């Protein structure tokens, strides 16, 4: 893939202006959709594209849309999930700040496909500039007639509103996000019913990630063949990889999926900052880390799953030899314990407990049996948590134990404190 698409205009000073966007083909895909496609054809097109969600779970987007009942007489809702909070992930912020019209165009096309006349974009509260840019883009789109009544002279009408999050990681989980828009605490709901059948205000609802919707806009601007020609057959299209941690060249890289993790961190990330690489977290903090020996894994959904990890949000965090894994394990536990919504006991109590044990080990007070205890605990959280937060957290902590038990053992048996811990307050 030689041409950049998602990042094409990102550094252009006018990238957020509607005139600039239109001059570069913006809203032409939407025009095509509204004049030539039935909603069903839009869904079929996205199914043919094999687009998979860019938020974390990687669910096929067209299939998700097709679950929304047709002609049921109910109100349908589209929600754009812009509650980017998975540690290591910073791609949606970039898209909203620098290419907001792409996101809006994708939302309008998706809303048309599922026949939704009201859409919400749920942006995390910390992303002030994203909110400002998306808000300006919405205003400009209304002024041009891309939003509001009878868009492009069709019978399709759509209003888009921003719902500003207020600092809860869990609201990135789709049912929690919908609860939050309804004005409730962000706590996940049991599935089924899936949101496509009973979502926002009990109505059929689709929740799609920012990058997913940007891809939708590009697919209708450039055609399905362009999209499917990029990357592996089961996971085509460009993807934004966010590289961070102990790398020479962190940043966002637009690449096809299917390249190896090794290529990603060495050829693009420039390799470790110091000495040897130790492990890499391939898909955001809830994705289990992959040790150096596993670095040839291909970066796509199936291969990462086979390697006991996941693609997640494609946020790649590298750890080099200066990194103490027990310290990272403790910090992972603390983060998820802090963000647990409190609804289910395994996650709320289990992660708090895990975090206490990990803190004890790190401070040189580890006891024999702590690791076994942690393993049992992680298994309990993994198997019994209500939503993916507890599952991801325990999986990620478990991976540090599985691959680096020797580092934990050393701390427990020698009652030492890791070097990095001296910088901790």
């Amino acid at each position, binding site marked *: 893939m030689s041409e950049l698409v998602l990042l094409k205009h990102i550094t252009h000073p006018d990238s957020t202006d509607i005139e600039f966007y239109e001059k570069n083909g913006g809203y032409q895909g939407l025009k095509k959709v509204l004049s030539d496609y039935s909603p069903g054809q839009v869904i079929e097109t996205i199914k043919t594209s094999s687009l998979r969600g860019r938020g974390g779970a990687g669910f096929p987007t067209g299939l998700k849309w097709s679950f929304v009942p047709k002609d049921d007489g109910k109100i349908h809702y589209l929600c754009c999930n812009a509650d980017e909070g998975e540690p290591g992930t910073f791609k949606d912020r970039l898209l909203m700040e620098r290419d907001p019209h792409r996101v809006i165009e994708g939302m309008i096309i998706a809303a048309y496909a599922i026949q939704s006349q009201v859409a919400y974009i749920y942006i995390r509260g910390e992303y002030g500039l994203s909110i400002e840019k998306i808000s*300006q883009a919405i205003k400009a789109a209304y002024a041009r007639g891309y939003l509001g009544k009878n868009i492009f002279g069709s019978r399709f009408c759509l209003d888009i509103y921003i719902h500003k999050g207020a600092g809860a990681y869990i609201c990135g989980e789709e049912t929690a996000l919908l609860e939050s828009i309804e004005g409730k605490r962000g706590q996940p709901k049991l599935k089924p019913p899936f949101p496509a059948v009973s979502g926002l205000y009990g109505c059929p609802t689709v929740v799609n990630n920012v990058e997913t919707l940007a891809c939708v806009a590009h697919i209708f601007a450039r055609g399905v063949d362009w999209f499917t020609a990029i990357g592996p057959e089961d996971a085509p299209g460009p993807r934004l990889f966010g590289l961070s941690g102990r790398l020479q060249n962190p940043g966002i890289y637009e690449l096809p999926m299917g390249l190896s993790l090794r290529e990603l961190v060495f050829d693009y990330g420039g390799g470790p900052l110091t000495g040897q690489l130790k492990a890499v977290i391939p898909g955001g903090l809830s994705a289990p880390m992959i040790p150096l020996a596993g670095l040839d894994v291909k970066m796509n959904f199936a291969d990462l799953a086979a390697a006991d990890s996941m693609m997640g949000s494609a946020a790649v965090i590298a750890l080099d030899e200066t990194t103490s894994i027990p310290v990272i394990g403790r910090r992972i536990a603390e983060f998820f314990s802090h963000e647990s919504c409190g609804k289910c006991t395994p996650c709320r109590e289990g992660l708090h407990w895990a975090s206490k044990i990990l803190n004890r080990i790190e401070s040189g007070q580890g006891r024999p049996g702590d690791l076994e205890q942690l393993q049992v605990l992680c298994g309990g959280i993994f198997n019994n948590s209500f939503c993916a937060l507890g599952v991801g957290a325990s999986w990620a902590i478990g991976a540090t134990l599985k691959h680096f038990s020797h580092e934990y053992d050393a701390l427990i048996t020698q009652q030492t404190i890791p070097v990095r811990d001296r910088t901790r307050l």
Partner: protein
Amino acid sequence: MTAEYSKQTIIADLTAPIADIVKRYPTQRSAIMPALYLAQEKYGFIDETAYLAISEILDVPEIWVFELASFYTLYKNKNIGKCHLQICTNVPCMLRGAYDMLEHLQTRLGISQGDTSKDGLFTLSTVECIGSCDVAPAMMVNEIYHTKLSKQSINQLLDQLTQAETESLATDILSLTQNTSSANNEPLANEQPLANKQFSENTESLTKSEPTAGPES
């Protein structure tokens, strides 16, 4: 921030803007989160007085307001400093020395994480990932991101903010800590993509970026 704070004045101030917000949603309840933000922006913080006022304006039970104000971390129930320093200590920032920067901030300001300086200028908080991982360690001061923090860039920033305050240019603090389109578009012009496939935010509006120091020791 200096508006009078009582249930009656809140109701008088916010009834009209909240009525506008309600139009976006099919239920009154959905407007609670934006209403809490409105009150917080106007008065600097929100507590039982505001919860009660909002519950009256929206005609919803007070507990519906209270449970959101206490669940979501961006709602503040006490006044904080003019400059809210929110330093990220999550893993990507931690790997780039965030805890050293936190220690430096605490030493420089003479306060602990969670506290406000005596002059009411700075509140220091640790936060989870703020989506600035490629240019870690990162911190938000009110709305503005400061990235690739170093002790030197932190000193420079604190001096600048303190100076803006002592010369009692209240608007300066605002302009230094809030998003304005022009300020945030500025860095784009200087953007030098390192490679054609890469984007990395290498510039910031207020502080100069410094290359990250080597590993923590």
